[in-house]
């Protein structure tokens, strides 16, 4: 019949172009990941021990995504939509084969030519990895076949009913997650008697879950998602429509629970994780501050690290006995008011000249300020005060009465940080929902009109700078006391960018978002100099940060856990459509005019 004929011919055309192009792209990505050494590095860590390493997981992932994309079709309301069928799976397989062929070609190339002089990470290890340690012939076939299979799988996800698909994806994600947070879980379980048995059962030797554990987690999450998915969706919908009052109360409860967790966990967790938590905490502190400047007031400050530096150097100069120019040797808390004052001054110094600039120029100027600050801290000119390249050392620990918070004990430092994080988060929260918060948001929306409505933008902007600066300076002060010595190298542009990525990925303007961003990004990937939960990521940390930034801007600029306002802002059309559809559903009650 004509219907079948047209379907197959259309399908054939579809298979031709889309699949091939996607496949080429996937192949390129896989080759790239291989060339930068990521695949081999990740191969050192297992996801499911012993059968699946992270390296292969990533490679498989590339093909699955390729298959998924090759077969994806946009479902538009009101347009006839062909249900997914076997032809789509073929599309996916084609994409996979093409990708596999590309990788195969790459293998042949690097076997034939030694490019190690140029591409330092293209090693024999990479060849072994790509050929599954089984020689060229087997490897190439495996690549092509594997590509086809996984591409088909990716395409086949379209065929699954939504419930099955969600459950399957959840299961896979949680297998990864449980594997990644091994250190945390092991630490928590440590104090229990069954700790050793647990560890052996759940976790494999080279990281990752054991097969039985993986099956358990996978099946468990699958079933849980299957059973409760509907409930979760309904729950989320209920939260959306909850009136302000109730939502705020729920938020407070959640916050209190989290704080309690924060208070208890460090006692249970090991040193490495606690150390990591302190780094996360520092970035969280800075993230909250930058959140006010960028997220609320809409000022893109790329030199934020300068305020962090001001806090650190003020503390160092005032507390260290080896401070070059003068050493009043104040206690940390006695130095704190000075930290606040100097940070505020810095905020005014940076903020005033840029008050009348347009957004992108402002960004570059603040970048310039950040670099000027760093170079001046580093210079011989100011060596007399700031110690130049040698920095300032012997910064004493924080003392609260009889207690000393030793910088080397991450647990204590974490508690100190927690204290400040709570204060800063509270302040942010309160400011958001206030006269000044509204003024900031209005200013971000339309500066001219905000002025016309009586908002003094000069004061508002300076306030944002100053408050942001003070928050960052807290981080700097704690950082100085924790490490005990500071060097200008710790205050690079990189830090400003990490904080920015954090709040963008987490969700600009949303306090929970910033927290999520900090924990996920800094926790997993690590800070500028320290590794995160997954050491294998360390080499590729900044590459991933960059990719994330681009990806988020393209796909989900509001972040992972955005404020409702932000989502609305960036997806106005969808919101409008939904609102319109809702209104229609309220039984054609005509939207009263206007």
């Amino acid at each position, binding site marked *: 019949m004509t219907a079948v004929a047209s379907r197959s011919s259309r399908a054939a055309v579809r298979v031709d172009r889309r699949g091939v192009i996607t496949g080429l792209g996937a192949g390129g990505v896989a080759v790239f990941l291989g060339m930068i050494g990521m695949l081999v590095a990740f191969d050192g860590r297992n996801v499911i021990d012993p059968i699946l390493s992270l390296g292969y997981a990533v490679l498989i992932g590339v093909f699955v995504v390729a298959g998924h994309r090759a077969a994806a079709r946009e479902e538009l309301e009101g347009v006839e939509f062909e249900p997914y069928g076997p032809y789509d799976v073929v599309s996916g397989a084609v994409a996979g084969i093409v990708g596999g062929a590309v990788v195969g070609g790459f293998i042949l190339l690097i076997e034939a030519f030694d490019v190690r002089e140029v591409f330092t990470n293209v090693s024999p290890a990479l060849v072994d990895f790509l050929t599954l340690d089984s020689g060229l012939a087997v490897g190439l076939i495996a690549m092509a076949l594997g590509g086809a299979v996984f591409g088909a799988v990716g395409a086949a996800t379209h065929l699954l009913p939504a419930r099955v698909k969600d459950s399957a994806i959840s299961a896979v994600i949680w297998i990864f997650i449980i594997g990644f947070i091994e250190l945390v879980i092991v630490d928590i379980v440590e104090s229990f008697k069954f700790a050793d048995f647990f560890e052996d059962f759940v976790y494999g030797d080279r990281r990752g879950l054991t097969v039985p554990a993986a099956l358990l987690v996978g099946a468990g999450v699958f079933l849980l998602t299957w059973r409760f998915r509907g409930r979760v969706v309904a729950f989320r919908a209920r939260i959306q429509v909850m009136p302000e009052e109730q939502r705020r109360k729920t938020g407070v409860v959640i916050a209190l629970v989290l704080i309690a967790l924060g208070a208890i966990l460090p006692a249970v967790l090991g040193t490495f994780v606690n150390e990591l938590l302190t780094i996360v905490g520092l970035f969280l502190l800075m993230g909250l501050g930058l959140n006010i400047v960028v997220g609320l007031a809409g000022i893109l400050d790329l030199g934020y690290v300068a305020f962090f530096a001001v806090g650190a150097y003020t503390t160092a100069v005032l507390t260290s006995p080896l401070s070059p120019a003068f050493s009043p040797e104040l206690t940390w808390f006695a130095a704190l008011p000075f930290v606040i004052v100097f940070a505020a001054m810095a905020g005014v110094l940076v903020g005033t000249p840029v008050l009348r600039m347009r957004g992108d120029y402002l960004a570059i100027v603040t970048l310039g300020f950040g670099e000027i600050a760093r170079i001046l801290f580093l210079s011989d000119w100011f060596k007399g005060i700031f110690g130049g390249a040698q920095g300032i050392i012997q910064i004493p620990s924080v003392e609260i009465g009889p207690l000393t918070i030793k910088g080397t004990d991450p647990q204590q430092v974490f508690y100190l940080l927690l204290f400040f994080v709570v204060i800063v988060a509270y302040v942010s929260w309160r400011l958001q929902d206030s006269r000044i918060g509204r003024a900031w948001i209005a200013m971000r929306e339309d500066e001219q*009109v*905000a*002025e016309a409505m009586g908002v003094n933008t000069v004061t508002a902007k300076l306030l944002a700078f100053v408050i942001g600066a003070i928050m960052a300076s807290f981080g700097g002060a704690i950082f100085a006391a924790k490490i005990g010595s500071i060097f200008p190298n710790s205050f690079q542009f990189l830090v400003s960018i990490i904080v920015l990525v954090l709040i963008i990925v987490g969700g600009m303007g949303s306090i929970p978002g910033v927290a999520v961003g900090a924990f996920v990004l800094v926790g997993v990937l690590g800070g500028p100099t320290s590794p995160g939960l997954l050491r294998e990521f360390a080499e590729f940390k900044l590459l991933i940060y960059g990719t994330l930034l681009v990806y988020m801007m393209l796909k989900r600029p509001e972040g992972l856990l955005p404020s409702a306002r932000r989502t609305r*802002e960036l997806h106005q059309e969808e919101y*409008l459509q939904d609102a319109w559809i809702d209104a229609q559903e309220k039984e054609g009650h005509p939207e009263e005019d206007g």
Partner: protein
Amino acid sequence: MAERLLDIRGLSKGFGGLQALRNLDFHVEEGEIVSVIGPNGAGKTTFFNTITGLYPPDEGEILFEGNDIAGLEPSDITERGIARTFQNVRLFPNMTVLENVMVAQHCRTRAGVFGAIFRTKAFQREEKEIRELGKDVLGFFGTRLTGYRFEQPAFVLSYANRRRLEIARAMATQPRLLLLDEPTAGMNPRETIELTELIGKLRSERGFTVVVIEHDMKVVRNVSDRVVVLDHGVQIASGTYDEVASDENVIEAYLGRPAERGTP
């Protein structure tokens, strides 16, 4: 004679080669509703922009309540009691309807960072007042902007409702003088009539003095105590609607000069 609310003398403003306002005189007594009309390009919006401080005038003085406000920052002028709407509605699209009218009260309120952080009694009281006033101002337009509308982001509003919110926002700054820039542009006849009544109520119920830029002559006729006609930056006529409507200069400005008798 009571001091005029707004007294403008010799106002001039040019942009590069274009002289938008030339030596313009204008005044408004308290409680008046004055319409400003004129063909396109007459300088009407520039006139508003200069009064509200978006541009500083080149020459002239703008006396509001006896004080010269020429050259002040827009937020200062708003604080002194002049509010405006924009010709192309410029709401804060992602803020809710209520938030739009709440933020407009910024210069009338004082709570600062300290109050916000510690939620002092004064702060809470002020927030409550701000909300109440916001709802009250929105209520001026009946039920159109109330109830579930409060929490809706401004960008979902229909065009007419946006215009109304724009006016409500200006009202919320608690001005003495309201400048409305083409408030009925784009509205259908029914909405226009409704808004015309509301402009009257702005004075009768709320005590504002109103200056309206308008193109719709029916509105002008029904609303104005006095009409001022601008053309090419100068005032060419002033008086009641009927006086102005039959003024030769005005007709010429709108329709052009009648052809010379005898030309082929």
